[in-house]
């Protein structure tokens, strides 16, 4: 079960059961939907951006432990950061979960818990769904994004 524990790290399980920033955000202009129809994973990300900085962020929806924990931990990681930093964090996160390289893993902080996902290629789409939705929200895209 060693490999399974690599995927389902305690922090991931904990966030999937008690997601943070799990609410709608009243009065935000930016939001986007992430939907993977094959799994049924479905999240909405709400972002409040002021002067190029993510002032507040939240999400709602349902999905597997990986996708939910990823959404929850993403909101914590990018809250208060300039949108450019969030974009860079996404690039580092993406490289790590897809196993491309672990160069950015030290900069990921808590998100490094998702490094185990690279051993489970079919679950990469779960870990990245919320991130793609966040990018869509920041870009003002109206159509739901999918990672399937």
């Amino acid at each position, binding site marked *: 079960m060693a490999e399974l524990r690599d995927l*389902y790290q305690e922090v991931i399980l904990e966030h999937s059961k008690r997601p943070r920033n799990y609410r709608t955000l009243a009065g935000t202009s930016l939001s986007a939907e992430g939907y993977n129809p094959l799994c*049924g994973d479905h999240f909405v990300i709400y972002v409040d951006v002021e002067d190029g900085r993510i002032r507040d962020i939240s999400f709602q929806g349902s999905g597997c432990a990986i996708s939910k924990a990823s959404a929850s931990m993403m909101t914590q990681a990018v809250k208060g950061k300039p949108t450019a930093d969030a974009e860079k964090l996404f690039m580092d996160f993406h490289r790590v979960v897809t196993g491309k390289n672990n160069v950015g893993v030290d900069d990921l902080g808590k998100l490094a818990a998702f490094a185990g996902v690279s051993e489970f290629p079919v679950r990469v789409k779960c870990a990245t769904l919320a991130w793609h939705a966040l990018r869509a929200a920041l870009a003002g895209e109206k159509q739901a994004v999918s990672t399937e």
Partner: protein
Amino acid sequence: MMTATNAIGWPHAAEPIEFDVYRRRADFPILSRKVHGKPLVYLDNAATAQKPQAVIDALVAYYTTENANIHRGVHALSEQATESYERSRAVAQHTLNAADTAETVFVRGTTEGINLVAQTWGRANIGRGDEIIISAMEHHSNIVPWQLLCEEKRARLRVAPINDDGELLLDEFEKLFGPRTKLVALGHISNALGTINPVSQVIELAHRFHARVLLDGAQAVPHLKVDVQALDVDFYVFSGHKVYGPTGIGVLYGKRQLLEAMPPYQGGGDMISSVTFEKTLYNRLPHKFEAGTPHVSGAIGLAAALEYVQAIGIDRIAAHEQELLSYATEQLRAIPGLRLIGTAREKAGVVSFVIDGVHPHDIGTVLDQEGIAIRTGHHCAQPLMQRFGVPATARASLALYNTADDIEKLVTALRKVREVFA
């Protein structure tokens, strides 16, 4: 009922094979491999079944000794390949107890068979305001082809409801019939729930309203005896790969007078009897519907699979799977927080379930690490998932080679799932 004889002299009964599940497991080489260091427990048979050595050998033998194009060469190989291909058709005909090989069309699989009927019979017979009835538990492949047809013809698709156990509500079904009902398209067995539908009653009902019936038999042919003449069904389709045969081959049965009257599906070689630039005459049945070089090896592999099933006996396979289904149902019910989706009285070897607080994909990943293959997702039946208010389910599905030991491993792994996600 006698099946028509044919030039090759088939069918003659295959040598019976003893049904000892452990011996039969040895017929399937893949079952001896390991996954993540654990012996493979294969419980994704409703997606596709594993192949016995007899099927693998048939494919190898064909390509090793007989390969040629069929229905055209005068040389020895072409003649042999043609004979093997047509003999395979006779095996398929025999499996369904069709009256004639002319009624047995090779297609790529169930999906192509349904699309063929929708695009030929459907386009010729469905008009504006006509109605097609399907059920709430259909696979996407028995929904979308009819939606496309209805859109084109401005016809109406009506959906027969089911109860919370996943059974058709026959009274409600009957209310959907009217003078404009032209077709009922129904799954014989639900891939997502395992429900065995009361197809005889539905066919009788439909015929009373002069409607035709197509049955999607993808999940039925591997698990029970199908007799298209006794059913009096108009169209019946199934896939080879779910009944231990190769992928890319399946069968469409259609009543002769219906097939005769239908326009061809695709144009090309083999489906014509003569071509001039002014006028083309179509070939006789079933070749009219088999344009181009067909999947010869697939048909031969499918025949090997159907003969393997016949040699064991479909009734004995069904009895074995029913016993395992009861055991699995009882064992899974005892797991706290587990809810079965699909609890029809008449069921085949499918156990769909959800576990409180655990997404099916997480269940699937944990089980995979234990070497256990199940399906998680919407099973190409999204409207059905909506009916049960779940985005997806986990599904274990049985075949002739599954054992009580497989079920015990599944149950142990599911308890582990509960521990990980408790």
